[in-house]
């Protein structure tokens, strides 16, 4: 009799445990799948300077908002649950207000966990994203005007953005094309903020969206030659160029 009672109690215990385990398992599964969604940062949201790459950032940021508080220009915000950014994490939208590139980087100093990497001590070395002149059809400089605003506001003028002269086939004038250099651009977003168009033609994008990557086996001949300091292959015969004969 007592054994039966014990067995029944054991069965009940196992059922109860299974019930809780199943319920919590379902909750965990749902949350886990949601995590995958929430980890996809929309391209318009830019993380503060020094932010670790997105997946690590979401494991390191404890959503305290200290960076938001210490930003002297109040450009940072914590994501609300209805936004497509992981709830409670800091971000800014360059078009609304770009990073003002404080030299002492107070947001990074404020971060208690190092989700914003404390090794970043020079703001010019930050890589929040990469500016891209995405629309060549509406950019005023491409239309032959000398807008140049993105170039003028760039904190690293003539380094991160240069103006490259090009022939304008529509007229006898030149075009000056704003050209971003990824080795210098911090992704602060000043160019996107300042773009005079209704919708910016130059935008800060996450670097992994903006950058291509060469195959590891590629070698740039001119760089290799610079390294060696002499022609890579000696004794190449320079054949005369064949020029079509001019019609008579």
């Amino acid at each position, binding site marked *: 009799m007592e054994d039966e009672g014990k067995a029944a109690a054991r069965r009940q215990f196992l059922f109860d445990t299974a019930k809780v385990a199943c319920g919590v398992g379902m909750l965990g599964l749902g949350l886990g799948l949601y995590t995958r969604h929430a980890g996809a940062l929309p391209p318009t949201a830019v993380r503060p300077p020094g932010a670790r790459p997105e997946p690590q950032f979401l494991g390191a940021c*404890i959503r305290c908002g200290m960076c938001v508080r210490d930003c002297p220009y109040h450009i940072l915000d914590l994501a609300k*649950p209805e936004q497509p950014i992981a709830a409670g994490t800091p971000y800014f939208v360059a078009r609304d207000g770009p990073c003002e590139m404080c030299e002492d980087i107070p947001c990074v100093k404020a971060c208690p966990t190092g989700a914003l990497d404390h090794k970043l001590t020079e703001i010019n070395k930050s890589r929040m994203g990469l500016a891209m002149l995405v629309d060549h059809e509406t950019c005023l400089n491409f239309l032959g005007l000398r807008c140049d605003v993105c170039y003028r506001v760039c904190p690293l003028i003539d380094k991160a953005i240069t103006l490259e002269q090009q022939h304008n086939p529509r007229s006898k004038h030149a075009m000056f094309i704003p050209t971003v250099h990824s080795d210098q651009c911090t992704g602060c977003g000043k160019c996107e903020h300042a773009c005079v168009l209704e919708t910016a033609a130059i935008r800060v994008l996450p670097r992994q969206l903006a950058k291509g990557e060469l195959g590891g086996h590629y070698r740039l001949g001119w760089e290799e030659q610079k390294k060696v300091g002499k022609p890579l292959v000696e004794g190449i015969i320079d054949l005369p160029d064949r020029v079509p004969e001019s019609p008579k």
Partner: protein
Amino acid sequence: MKQDAGAEAVRARGWLRTHQWLLARRASQFAVLALFLAGPWFGYWLVKGNLNYGLTLGVLPLADPYVLMQSLAAGHRPERNALIGAAIILVAYFLAGGRAYCAWVCPVNVVTDAAHWLRARLGVRGSARLSHATRYWILAMTLALALITGTIAWELVNPVSMLHRGIIFGMGAGWIIVAMTFLLDLFVAERAWCGHLCPVGAFYSVVGKFSPLRVSAVRRAKCNDCADCYAVCPEPLVIKPALKGADHGIGPVILSPHCTNCGRCIDVCSKDVFAFATRFSNRGEPQANDQRPATRSAEAPVQLS
């Protein structure tokens, strides 16, 4: 549920003394919130941040060890300030009773207490059966999820940080999650969130497993079985071993880590049975059956003298 819990105590001691710990608790909850809000609302930056991490007067870091633990599980090595802050909080809640966090600090407590009050008022009957241990399963799940996904997944939905962060930094749709918690407690199960599910409370109960500060049924011999304490207790299971354990050789101190040290039982008892004490005050207490080992309850004191 007993409707007029505490009425006898009000007659015996007056309203104020029957609500002193409750009032103190509300004052503490709102004072904590006020400290965080003085900066963003009035420009007095006493505390920056929120309950996950805050910097007081620019020098004292305080961090939630539970969130930090998830971050560690996710594979991140935090900077010094977060670690110092978490250590201070761990020591503080170890001393004050782990779940004192729930009763004296957590903003969701106000929400679920309101739900509980309304539940009694509306006479909502029926309650889904939930195991009190569910919270530990959820606690384990959140840590496992951090480990698997490499992100602090629970913070995406955690009502505790959602509410606190929302009040300070802007709520957005966070209200929905808070409202869900309220409705859950109101209609689905009595004290569902704080009493059964919340992994934050589960974490702090582990922190306070051996806390020195406890509630004790010091004058349990005077108990007249009015059951008012059971009616108001957010974790009614914790009372019985201490209150009725004299015959089983169990001391009067409530040793269960589920006890939130809210002090409401002290408030409503017309016989002044309960009082704050240390866990060590079990020693030297005259026991009914001293020889019998206290194996009858999981909440038995560690050592009987």
